């Protein structure tokens, strides 16, 4: 039983401010963190693994974390190991610099193929930065697998994944044979922290494997992105609200506007 978790690193929103007037994003502290949705995907993988271990599966389940990106992604992968991944693979290549979700899906699918396939592929449904939700269906397509989108609960037994998924305002339960790609909604699960000891081990004792585009036998075609980021745009600057002199005047306004 092999569980692959694809994780993403995002710019820490605590480190930047958006100035709409200057039409600029000011990055005060360029730090990257594990995307909250990836955090949840890793925790779901551990839960599935523990449940399988408890039910005495024939082969002990293995969690493999994967991420595509520059050197800094190494931190996200070590954090993933601290969360319980037994193996971490960094898809790292200068050719990935311009990667869009299409190229990322190609690379991740090729890496999963190189691993000999996976029984379960887990991802966050939407990342904090772009929330585009583009990668999970693309990866499922590249692997030619079904995709269970927006899962709020996942249970694996008897070779099937039992899933509760959010569809608009309602929830449906179904099961599907493995292998399957599952994307999880972060809000449905509690986020957690990796243990400090495991995080230290992740840096001191364990190592992250690096695979290049050549290792994955990717062609020039596979590496050509279909979409490129051209820049940023900004909504209209917020206007100052009413300046109020004192509390009495404020109370008056709140009553008049019927908010109190």
């Amino acid at each position, binding site marked *: 039983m092999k569980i692959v978790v694809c994780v993403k690193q995002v710019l820490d929103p605590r480190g930047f401010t958006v100035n*709409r007037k200057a039409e600029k994003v000011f990055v005060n502290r360029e730090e990257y963190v594990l995307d909250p949705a990836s955090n949840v995907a890793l925790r779901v993988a551990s839960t599935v693994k523990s449940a399988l271990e408890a039910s005495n599966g024939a082969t002990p389940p293995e969690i493999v974390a994967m991420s595509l990106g520059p050197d800094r992604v190494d931190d996200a992968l070590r954090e993933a190991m601290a969360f319980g991944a037994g193996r971490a693979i960094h898809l790292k290549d200068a050719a990935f610099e311009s990667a869009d979700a299409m190229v990322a899906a190609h690379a991740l699918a090729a890496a999963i193929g190189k691993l000999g396939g996976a029984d379960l592929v887990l991802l966050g449904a939407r990342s904090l930065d772009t929330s585009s939700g583009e990668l999970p*269906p693309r990866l499922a397509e590249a692997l030619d697998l079904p995709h269970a989108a927006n899962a709020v609960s996942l249970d694996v037994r008897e070779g099937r994944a039992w899933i*509760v998924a959010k569809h608009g305002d309602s929830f449906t339960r179904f099961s599907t044979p493995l292998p399957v790609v599952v994307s999880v909604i972060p809000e449905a699960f509690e986020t957690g922290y990796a243990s400090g000891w495991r995080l230290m081990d992740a840096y001191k004792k364990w190592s992250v494997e690096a695979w290049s585009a050549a290792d994955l036998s990717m062609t020039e075609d596979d590496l050509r992105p*279909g*979409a490129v980021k051209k820049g*940023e745009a900004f909504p209209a600057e917020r*206007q100052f609200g009413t*300046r109020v002199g*004192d509390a009495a005047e404020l109370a008056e306004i709140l009553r008049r506007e019927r908010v109190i």
Partner: protein
Amino acid sequence: MARLSLSEIPHDIWVVAELDAEHREPTPLALEMTYGARMAADLMGFYVKVVVLGSDLPDVSASLIQAGADRVYLVDHPAVASLAVEPWLKALSDVFLAQSPEFVLFGATPLGGELAPRLAQRFGGGLIARCVSLRVDDFDRAFVGRRAAYGGEYYEVVATSGPAPQFATALPDCFGPPYMDASRFGETEGVELELERGAWSVGESEVVEFEMPVPKLKNARRIVSVGRQVGDVEAAKRLASAIGAEFAGAREAIDEGYIDESWVVGITGERVGPDLYIALGIRGDTMHAFGIQDARCVVAVHPDPDAPIFKQADAGIVGDPAKVAGELMKLLRDT
């Protein structure tokens, strides 16, 4: 799935229109996208082609033609009666292989959000997902769209490129209300396809009850929230209990020991939408701004007149937050 290539040079702009489940007519978003496609088509010299899939389809072409479609393709097949994705994918790949679209628009709906990335991957095309605005650039022959970053604090401008078909999913209001021209002509064509249930055997699905964890502040109608400059935090807490408000804070309030992790408002905490949000001593950076976008009325008190929070506040007082909180409590206690 092996990558599919088109035999012809791609041309024209396509819209995949969804039908309202209840009334069985094109959704407002489908009409809006058709109108958006019309504007692009007039610029580029394209035809606007709309495809509708479903079982026992009523004639839905009239409104789509009024919104700008030159030709409406109806795929009427029992396999696309449900929203199981595989037959839809097969149907649309077959149509696109036969017709070679250059640009394809989907709604940013649960179905479009699944179909568009999969078809884009299948045809080796770029995708701009969840566009808040979108146009076709006539010079580059490319979709150029804006999508929200960090919950809409700013937008990323993204462009696709050919020669493979280019895809986008549009959110409502991406193009604005459609101009329905009753004098427009268009054609309607039925498409016969061989579709099967598909190999991805998903077991019987049933609708179930599921309790999502409810964020603590989700249902709060009034929130008193504090930041580093609040001064006397007890005054803020008294105000909160006097007006029946929840007590929360910006992330920096954790450092001051005013709140714990589960009461943070902002990107890394919760997004709230109360009727009244009173921000005491919160400067109001981007992270916090994200969290209160849905609040109906924002009141800010901060000693610094240049604090960004005042740009988000409906009413603001430059002054000592604790002092104002105390006065406000006395004035509002009985309401």
